[in-house]
């Protein structure tokens, strides 16, 4: 599950890339970079990894794909 902060961050980062000319990874509907980024995220194709840290300093890298899988809707 993505937290709402992670979701916002991922979409924001990807939308920025698209707005600067990055090609969309898959053919997705959407007019604005934000829409495209959101659709890409929901399609589960973004090659991104989130690093989650614990208070004890340990961390774990989790591919976005995993997190998007069990998203409650």
């Amino acid at each position, binding site marked *: 599950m993505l937290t709402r902060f992670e979701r916002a961050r*991922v979409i924001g980062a990807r939308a920025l890339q698209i707005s600067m000319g990055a090609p969309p990874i898959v053919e997705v509907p959407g007019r604005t970079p934000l829409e495209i980024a959101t659709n890409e995220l929901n399609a589960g194709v973004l090659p991104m990894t989130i690093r989650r840290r614990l208070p004890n300093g340990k961390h774990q890298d989790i*591919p976005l794909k995993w997190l998007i899988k069990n998203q409650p809707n």
Partner: protein
Amino acid sequence: MTKRQTAHAEADDAGADVAAAGAKTEKPAKTVVASKRRVKEAASASASAKPNAPKNASPSRAKKPKAAGATGGEAPVPLEPTPDLGLAQGRASKARQPDMPLVDEVLARHDRRLPEMLVSQLKAKLAPLKEKLNEEQMVTVVEETYSSYIKALIEPGEAAGTVAAQSVGEPGTQMTLRTFHYAGVRELNVTLGLPRLIEIVDARRLPSTPTMTIYLDDEHKRDLTKAKDIASNIETVTVENVAKSIGYEMLNNFTIEVDAEMCEDKLIDINYIAKSIEKLKIPGKVSVEGNTITVEPETTDRAKIKRIRERIMDLRLKGLKGIKRVVIEKKGDEYLLRTDGSNLAQVIENVKGIDRRKVYTNNISEIAEVLGIEAARSAIIREAFEVLDQQGLDVDVRHVILIADLMTSTGKIRQIGRHGVSGEKSSVLARAAFEVTVKHLLDAASHGEEDRLEGVTENVIVGQPIPLGTGIVELFMRFSKEGT
């Protein structure tokens, strides 16, 4: 992935400090309520969906017990049943938990575990409905409970501390306008409202109106005379209290005329008074004649005699140190004692005929000393919540709990402020941002201190994204093995 909850938000001022602790705090109280409602809705919905189900299949309308009332407090500090502070643990209720394999089975399908207390309450609620609900409906109820619990959890990255600070702070501003400093509980004065709240948060060693509530044991609680006996043993009686008048005789002696009625009332013998005075070991003579005690010190120095006289007047003949007055109160059909002044250690250790487990004092530092830090934490929560509650301010307990956790997390009580939480931050920049900037920076420089830039304030100063909300997310553009 559930266990990988990220929680590294750190210090800002009092408020944001809480964030670190808060990020990993799961929230029981409200969830329980919320999910209960859910359960009820789901149950009645599914019940009415089935045509042959009895019309009144929805859960009984009977009053539901308070969420945690049944399980009691966690610490030796007695928690009166009224405020549900969400402190209860599942321990007590586990024994009575009905056997519901279906519930366990459904919950086991999910990757996050519900708190034991919630599970046992859910089981207790569902057990009587076994007949009325079919398996599918039962599963629906459990699923609903699970998902509303998950929804109520706080997300990593949330500024829980800031929210807590605001949630307590704003109602605080309302209090100033509406409160009077004192509210008379019978003859006793107890500080309430904002002054009391400040006192709690400042972690003052001595509250302005220390007071205890002492419950009596089974033998004594229904008998007024026995209650009075105990009260008179606790209440401090000084020589001054039983003296009718103090005479100034010649040069070097003075007399104390004892009020016989008073003595009888307090069960004190005049010879005992004289003996106690002798025990002070003041060089000189003490003699009793009728109702009069004559003290003849050896010295003739006026100032010294005056000092001796004061010492004698303040001499404690009976009772416990610090307990100025005891009032007997009737609550239901039992008597209990309320005191002006507090002495928890002595009361618990030495007073007979009381219910030790229920003794309560509003002196938090005393609780910390006698019963330990966990008890103090409960006391902070209870006291602060009661103040807010009394004012009719509806503050969620969990905010108060967070503050109490922050104050006690080091093992000793820290105040929220200069000499505690804000002043002991590990980050130089955060401390400098709080107060006496130059001094903190100079000291830090001369000690070669280092700032890890882990908190909110530091990063604001440096001009970086802060570790809160979206700023806490660490994102990599990376093709991992398992990922895309």
